[in-house]
């Protein structure tokens, strides 16, 4: 079980060749809404709780080969981002209530 601090989330982007939405704006929203619950760092950082992969479209082509064994959560649009935020908040709440953190890839 991880300690009660904020989640360390590694941010990985696809290359953004023809994104359907503004990936940076969505990440900014995620960061703001999860302030206190999570800190966002580069995906090659150490001691990550999970990797958040931000894809620009449903092709979801980002290279994830470096993340074998890590917990990965993919978003490919603002709707996915909302689900991610809700999931993290829910799990963090569960954690403070004594449940374990079990973030899984969606």
């Amino acid at each position, binding site marked *: 079980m991880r300690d009660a601090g904020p989640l360390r989330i590694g941010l990985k982007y696809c290359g*953004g060749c023809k994104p359907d939405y503004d990936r940076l704006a969505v990440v900014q929203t995620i960061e703001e809404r999860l302030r206190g619950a999570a800190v966002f760092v580069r995906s090659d950082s150490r001691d990550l709780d999970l990797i958040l992969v931000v894809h620009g479209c449903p092709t979801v082509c980002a290279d994830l080969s470096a993340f074998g064994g890590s917990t990965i959560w993919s978003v490919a649009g603002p709707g996915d981002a909302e689900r991610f935020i809700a999931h993290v908040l829910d799990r963090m709440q569960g954690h403070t209530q004594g449940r374990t953190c079990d973030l899984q890839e969606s």
Partner: protein
Amino acid sequence: MMTAEQYEQSLRLLNFEVYMFGKRVENVVDDPIIRPSMNAVAKTYEMAQRPEYEDIMTATSHITGKRINRFTHIHQNVGDLVKKSKMGRLMGRATGCCFQRCVGMDALNALSIVTFDIDKKHGTQYNQRFIKYLTFVQENDLTCDGAMTDPKGNRALAPHQQADPDLFLHVVEERADGVVVRGAKAHQTGAVNSHEIIVMPTIAMRAEDKDYAISFALPSDAKGILYIMGRQSCDTRKLESGNLDRGNALFGGHEALVVFDDVFVPWERIFMFKEYEFAGSLVENFASYHRQSYACKVGVGDVLIGAAQTAAEYNGAERASHVKDKIIEMNHLNETLYCGCISCASEGHKEPSGTYVVDKLLANVHKQNVTRFPYEIARLAQDIAGGLMVTMPAEDDFTSPATGKWLNKYYAGNCDVPTMNRMRILRLIENLTLGTAAVGYLTESMHGAGSPQAQRIMISRLANMGEKKRAAQKLSGIEDA
């Protein structure tokens, strides 16, 4: 990898001999005509550093295992080829012009294949030399000019038949430590933004032309190399104050005639020497990769379509059904181009050297479409823009107390939009379809990586006619099909 700033600094260390408007250019990097093209190459360095683009803009070197700029990468799988196409679109959209760095990448990949094949036949050591050179390029994150096109003189004659033997670059002296070459390469994209120049023959050759069958790489400021800059339509607008009339305020491209005035090339930088039977293979591999590289025009097309839509909105015409339909047509053509560059990459295969190469038939079909569709997209953009894109007065007239009020009054469109914004988007459309960027978006689409007929020859060679005939004959009931 270098940052954009480090790239700019690295160019300042080069001692180029560059001429423009009849004079030597003393400070190439800061020259106002050349600098926007430097900005476009610098963008390939900047975007490789940004997390939101690195998945496309960088790759893992198969030699060192290090993270490198994709423009120095040798494609190791189909995924690499697909990412190359995506990178072209991404960069084209980010700069709205030719960002110049693809041609060197294509030269490197073609040489990785052909040096291996020459060695296999002749027992030479070219591939080993090439890998050493490639490592140097990757480790220093260099920009390379891919120099294939000779001036060619009389197109009906082979290199050795030309009245002036220098119309194709050739060997004039062999020494113990290397060779001396003479000739020129025309239309060289990004030449004075490049650290290195990689020379390749222009055409397939026979034994009589063996002195012309040479490929090598040199530092771009090597002794005896000089550059004469090409002009672009509207280029001197970059010398004016303000930036409205440039259309693209930040970026541009450039081409130059590169003269090799008896230039020494050491053996360790030579990757083909008189193996004339491989000249055609080098041309074909380079051309196939480079025809794929016209993925960049899809990104520039994105910019032009965005500009046309914006112009329509600023004019208050965006809801007209024919305008909507024209935007649909522009997108249809642009995405059809994207289909071509993605499909030739997706259908790529591994060569004996280990390098992946695109499907050559599909790459040629893609480039053939590129020789046409940007012209139609440009025509539709001009239709939507209206005549003001070519009759608009200068920026100074908009700021002049005598004329500014009239221009702001009479050139207003949708009253929610400042008149100057309307002018800006129209100038961008002018830039892309008639100005400096039309060099890249239109005429380069026509001739770059080979004129249309070059692709048609390849299509006729590569289309599997036997299989098509067999299919037809079988279905029609012909017995022995």
